[in-house]
């Protein structure tokens, strides 16, 4: 914003496509750089997962053994699972197979890709719906509250959003279960699946989605509200208000665009929280997602399964963070 003089005529006459292409080129380079950085982070994360499970007491062979197996049987299974080899060797094998889509074999002899084939789409559906609901809810509440700062709505939203964020998912879940299912009988208490592995009816999604979305909506409402408050103090918003534009126009057309980067960052971090919360919520509602797979796999010390879940979750989070980066780049880029 340093050079505000009008551009020379020749520059204005330059074909737009060239500059667009250049912009696209730099954007692609930026995306590639960010992706490369995230890929390295993912590698480190997976290495940490392998190392961490190594540090836990017991191993997959003993955790999944039958009592009658005996020492020789255990040793044989340990060998079969490759647990007698150093952890870095197993990590190398697993990670080099990863690009081919091979996530290894579970301690009970199932392909990890098979184990995750049905649960992953279910978790994406659950998390995705909760995510959309969170974004819409947070925007609506945050904007509504910002419309009249320190008004009644603002104060109520401030209080309830703080309270909602402070509630752990399992408290929300049990409250929902009691009220919406066990007392009123309106919604099914547990998820039952059909032959395709997906929940039998959409009503089974309502409570798990709400249990995830309520705390995150609380968190993001506060972010939206704060970002809008920051923007309200910006000169161009001030100017718009002094021009006599309607409150909604000032908020939506002038304040909100500048608030996008902060909001995008906020909801992006919620992705991780949503996937983390899924472990608890899925167990409570018997929702067949990767959260339940993860919980069981940790108990079994089943490294390939845990790493598979982590890789899938990390991929999802990476995509969302990348999108958030793009939103930021676009907003800030437009102003630089």
């Amino acid at each position: 914003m340093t050079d505000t003089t009008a551009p020379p005529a020749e520059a204005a006459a330059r074909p737009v496509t060239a500059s667009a292409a250049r912009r696209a080129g730099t954007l692609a380079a930026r995306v590639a750089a960010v992706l490369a950085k995230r890929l390295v982070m993912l590698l480190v994360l997976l290495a940490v997962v392998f190392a961490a499970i190594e540090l836990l007491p017991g191993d997959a062979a003993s955790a999944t053994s039958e009592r009658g197996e005996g020492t020789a049987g255990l040793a044989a299974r340990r060998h079969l699972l490759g647990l007698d080899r150093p952890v870095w060797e197993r990590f190398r094998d697993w990670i080099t197979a990863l690009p081919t889509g091979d996530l290894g074999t579970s301690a009970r002899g199932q392909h990890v890709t098979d184990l995750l084939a049905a649960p992953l789409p279910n978790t994406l559906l659950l998390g995705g719906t909760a995510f959309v609901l969170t974004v819409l809810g947070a925007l609506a509440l945050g904007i509504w509250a910002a419309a009249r700062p320190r008004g009644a709505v603002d104060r109520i939203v401030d209080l309830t959003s703080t309270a909602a964020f402070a509630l752990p998912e399992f408290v929300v879940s049990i409250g929902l279960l009691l009220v919406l299912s066990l007392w009123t009988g309106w919604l099914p208490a547990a998820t039952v699946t059909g032959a395709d592995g997906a929940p039998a009816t959409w009503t089974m999604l309502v409570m798990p989605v709400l249990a995830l979305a309520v705390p995150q909506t609380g968190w993001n409402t506060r972010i939206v509200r704060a970002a809008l408050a920051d923007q309200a103090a910006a000169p161009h918003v001030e100017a718009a208000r002094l021009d006599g534009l309607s409150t909604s126009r000032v908020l939506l057309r002038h304040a909100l665009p500048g608030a996008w980067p902060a909001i995008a960052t906020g909801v992006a971090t919620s992705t991780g929280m949503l996937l983390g919360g899924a472990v608890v919520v899925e167990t409570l509602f018997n929702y067949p997602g990767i959260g339940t797979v993860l919980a069981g796999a940790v108990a079994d010390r089943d490294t390939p399964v845990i790493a598979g879940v982590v890789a899938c979750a990390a991929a999802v989070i990476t995509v969302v963070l990348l999108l958030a980066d793009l939103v930021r780049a676009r907003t800030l880029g437009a102003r630089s």
Partner: protein
Amino acid sequence: MDWNRRQVLWAGGGMGAAALLAACGGGKDAASSGSGGTPQKGGTLRVGALGRASAITRDPHGNQGNESDYLVIALVYDTLTAPGLKQNTVGRLASAWKPSADLKTWRFTIAKGATFHDGSPVTAEDVVWSLRRLRNTPAGAARLPGITADHITADGKDTVVLVSDFANAELPMITRLSTFILKKDTPDKDIAKAPGTGPFKLDWYRGGNARLLRNEHWHGGPVPLDAIEVTMFESPQAMANAMLSGQIDLASNAGAVAARTADARKDIQVIRRPNDMAMPLVMRTSGGPFADARVREAMKLIVDREAMVKQVLSGYGTVANDILGTGDPGYAKNIPQRTRDLAKAKQLLTDAGFDFGKTYQLVTTEDIAGLAESATLFAAQAREAGVKVEVVKQESGTFYDKTWLKGDFYTNYWGTNDSVVFFASKTMTTGSGQNEAGWSDKDFDAAYHKAIATGAPEARTAALRDLQQIEHDRSGYLLWGMADGIDLAAPKVHRLPQLPGYGRVQLENVWLSR
């Protein structure tokens, strides 16, 4: 109190369920629950069973960690024999069996008209192949003890011959739980879809859940149900909630917490299957503070059995008498019940020179509900006798690695309890593979060998009685009680399984009233 996250969740759910009771008291009157009435044909039974998505196993000869998987497998495939009510072994795919005079060679006859779901008849070759496959799994030696793979042979089209390394009057019993029969040469990659011979055919299976359809041609007779839908539940509480909200008709092995909730609901049957789970305290006999039989007897006199059943099992259980295998038709009910006697216990401990100044560690796990609680309650009861016991909780993997079969004093649990001889052979005879207490007693070994080498009923009963008396007197097991297996069911469900343990999967006779 150390609570893990899962327990907190369950407790939370429990509170939810308790609150529900208040809201739902005074429901409809319970319809006829037991097996009354003429069986009606048709209907789909929706069953909930426990299991974890990460532990899914489809191989009938694999290590089934999930009750849901075992349920599906046991309905699709037949074992040679099965647990029974009056006799603890009844026929399934084998209609009859006969031992040689030395009780080493056993000939099993395949049931007439037994066919696989694809229509092909079951041959002795199929059975031999399946049993050998089972024997060659890592746990095979424990599943078919004393029978090596080359001692499993076919004799003609419908007879299978098993030769044991030692005389074994109980051999048919060991073929009850995991001898699932598949077609000869089924490749490993097709195992999940391989046709069985059981009362139900697999319609679909996905992520632990399955739908099964009636096998119209089952050799065991007509099957009333059209279909069974199995839903896998990660937590007993979610399963109980599904039961309470009417999403399932049967919650298999739901546990005591769910039973307490459902007891107040008149529209839910609570089925108690006695002798389901043993949770003994194990005292090392081969060394350490419990090596003296008087110290062990003192511990058995210290425990308040009634209080244990009431508090640890929420009353869903029965008092036991330090003899494992309480569900055995030959269980010695006439051995007097041991009761609490602190004075005698103190006397025995003093006589044995027991060190009252020391604190003794009792190692436990949270592998099943109530196990850690049993250790804690015992420690409190021991304090009343001046014995200091400190409870140490170990994580499951660590426990099996470091404590099991090695520790001086620990808790454990056993799920199949209908045979005295089974426990004797597996856990108490000298050098047995899972001799948890490191016990070696000449008289006991002699009684055991007499019992399994005797075919004549009267002599066998006498030998079994001797065996149990010795076990009661001086083994390393303090067995204070037996937990019930608990199923919850809708009133319309009839002829539900009554047997403990794996008997809970016998759903072939269940019918629905409409």
